[in-house]
């Protein structure tokens, strides 16, 4: 039978109920009664039956449609198991609330390395079973004990050669060279992927970036670079904002997500958009499985393994610009798209991996300095 229940709503209700249980307003028994009254409980005991469906959660929008088509429909065809995509955003907080309340309705979540580390320490997610999931089909830096890479995206140097008189900045040093490359630049409202570029702009080799940023002097130096450039900076808050800034020719240069650059290459007029992965920062999306997921951990692992098929990952790239996580996928990418693939071997060699450990230790303090440098 087809389940037409509103999962986003139910997940939200569960979240609220779980929060109240934690505060002690609702007893655990009261919590279960509340779930029963909401009609949520019956869908929770999927574990007792053989898995009939798998709930995969990501962040909504077009990515949800692509996930359904690329992984969901093909999995259904291969196994007969329904795949339900839920785009309600599996933040670490939500996963935690769900597991702690014992009312898990999600099987597989599209998370990040930072969240995966926190959730592992808190004991909220299942270990990845590498007997089912193939380690060799994942970039080495995206393998964790309790999480495994699903796709990649990068922070890249994008530019509009038309606005720069045919010139294109080749690296971050060029981006900070306002004399030869006049015009506005856009950087993210957060330090994520940004401090790295400011560090490379000082001539630091990509491989040494996080070592330099490991000291307060290194952070201050990067912040100072933004202070110098700030009269030429417009800040982007969301991915769509960065896209609009290029479309409306408000900026000539930017440090934006490769997935947005992938869309812009088709939307911008010929010869007015270019991207280099030189000095880019590549980050993987990470699959995690909430502890006690309804379909069972093994079923979730089988789905993850299904998504490791290089052909499917190439399709994913073609549709939405997410880079394949499997090293085997790169050669299958059509020639004209190779330039735009974050995990293409040629591009990979120019980039560094996003360092979640550094962000865990330094982000909050750095954000404050970053805002100050931009406005003060």
């Amino acid at each position: 039978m087809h389940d037409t229940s509103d999962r986003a709503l139910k997940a939200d209700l569960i979240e609220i109920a779980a929060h109240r249980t934690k505060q002690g307003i609702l007893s655990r028994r009261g919590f279960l009664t509340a779930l029963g009254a909401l009609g949520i409980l019956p869908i929770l005991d999927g574990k007792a039956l053989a898995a009939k469906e798998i709930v995969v959660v990501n962040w909504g929008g077009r990515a949800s449609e692509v996930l359904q088509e690329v992984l969901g429909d093909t999995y259904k065809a291969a196994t007969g198991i329904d795949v339900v995509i839920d785009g309600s955003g599996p933040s670490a907080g939500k996963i935690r609330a769900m597991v702690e309340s014992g009312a898990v309705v999600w099987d597989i979540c599209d998370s990040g390395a930072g969240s995966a580390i926190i959730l592992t320490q808190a004991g909220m997610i299942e270990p990845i079973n590498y007997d089912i999931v193939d380690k060799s089909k994942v970039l080495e830096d995206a393998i964790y004990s309790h999480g495994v890479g699903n796709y990649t995206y990068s922070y890249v140097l994008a530019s509009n050669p038309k606005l720069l008189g045919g010139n294109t900045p080749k690296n971050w040093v060029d981006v900070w060279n306002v004399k030869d490359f006049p015009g506005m630049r856009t950087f993210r409202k957060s330090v994520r992927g940004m401090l790295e570029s400011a560090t490379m702009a000082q001539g630091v080799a990509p491989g040494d970036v996080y070592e330099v940023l490991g000291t307060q002097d290194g952070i201050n130096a990067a912040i100072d670079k933004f202070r110098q450039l700030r009269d030429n900076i417009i800040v982007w808050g969301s991915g769509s904002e960065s896209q609009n800034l290029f479309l409306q020719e408000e900026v000539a240069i930017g440090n934006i997500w490769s997935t947005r650059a992938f869309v812009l290459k088709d939307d911008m007029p010929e010869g007015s958009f270019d991207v280099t992965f030189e000095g880019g920062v590549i980050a993987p999306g990470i699959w995690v499985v909430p502890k006690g997921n309804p379909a069972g951990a093994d079923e979730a692992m089988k789905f993850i393994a299904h998504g490791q098929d290089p052909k499917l990952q190439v399709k994913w790239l073609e549709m939405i610009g997410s880079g394949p996580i499997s090293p085997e996928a790169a050669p299958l990418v059509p020639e004209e798209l190779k330039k735009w693939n974050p995990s293409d071997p040629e591009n990979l060699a120019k980039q560094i991996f996003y360092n979640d450990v550094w962000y865990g230790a330094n982000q909050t303090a750095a954000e404050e300095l970053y805002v100050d440098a931009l406005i003060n």
Partner: protein
Amino acid sequence: MISRRSHLTYWMLIAPALFVMVVFYIWPLLNIFLISVNEPATGFDNYIRAAESSAVRTSFVITFRVAVETTLFCVVLGYIVAYGVTHAAPGIRPLMLALVLLPFWVSVLIRSFSWIVLLGRSGVVNDTLKDIGLISSPLRLMHNELGVIIAMVHVMLPFAVLPMLANMRGIDRSYVDAARGLGASEWTAFWQVYVPQTKPGIFSATLLVFVLSLGFFITPALLGGGRVLMISQYITYQIQEFLNWGLGSALSVVLLIATALVLVGAARFVNLKATLLERSK
């Protein structure tokens, strides 16, 4: 003298409004204050952090500067509009009034987006100026403070026009006529006789626009390019990006107190009660 009975009637009349205020305004406000001293730990740590942060200080300076600039432009432009409407031919007055009120019915979001279309690098204004040969490369009209001020003046203008209009409509023309009859020049009659009578309108317009501008969010967020960071944006940033409810709430409380201080300061120079409650007199 008012009897006890009618006292009771008056209280019952304001009870619903009072109830709404307490439940939907006073109570949440108290909660904001409680969050600011309880998260993440009990004490005034959030306030100390805010006072020590140079970003917070700058954001407050930007907020007050933008509010002052907006108020200045709004009051000057609004005065001219209000004067024009008051002294226009009676037949055309309703139309002029409608034009002042019309923007009220369009959401601030849409009005701000319209300014993006107008002020952009390849927007209407820049393209027109380029086409008629006045400029060779586009001017930077937005993603800076200029853009924020332009759009905010537009959004706030009705708030300046309406109190001054109410004030001016209550002014008897015969005072100016009398001054003219006694030999005053047109300018003297306006400056020494008319303008003093419009002071209550000017004051209430100033206060209204200034206080509203202090908490403005959408317009600076859209047209400021991220660098005209007003305090309301900073609060959103703390809460949405970092889930830092404590600091966000503390900053809200500080903004509230700062606004109250402005009103108290204003009260030293003007009669607030007369300005805000009896402006049409």
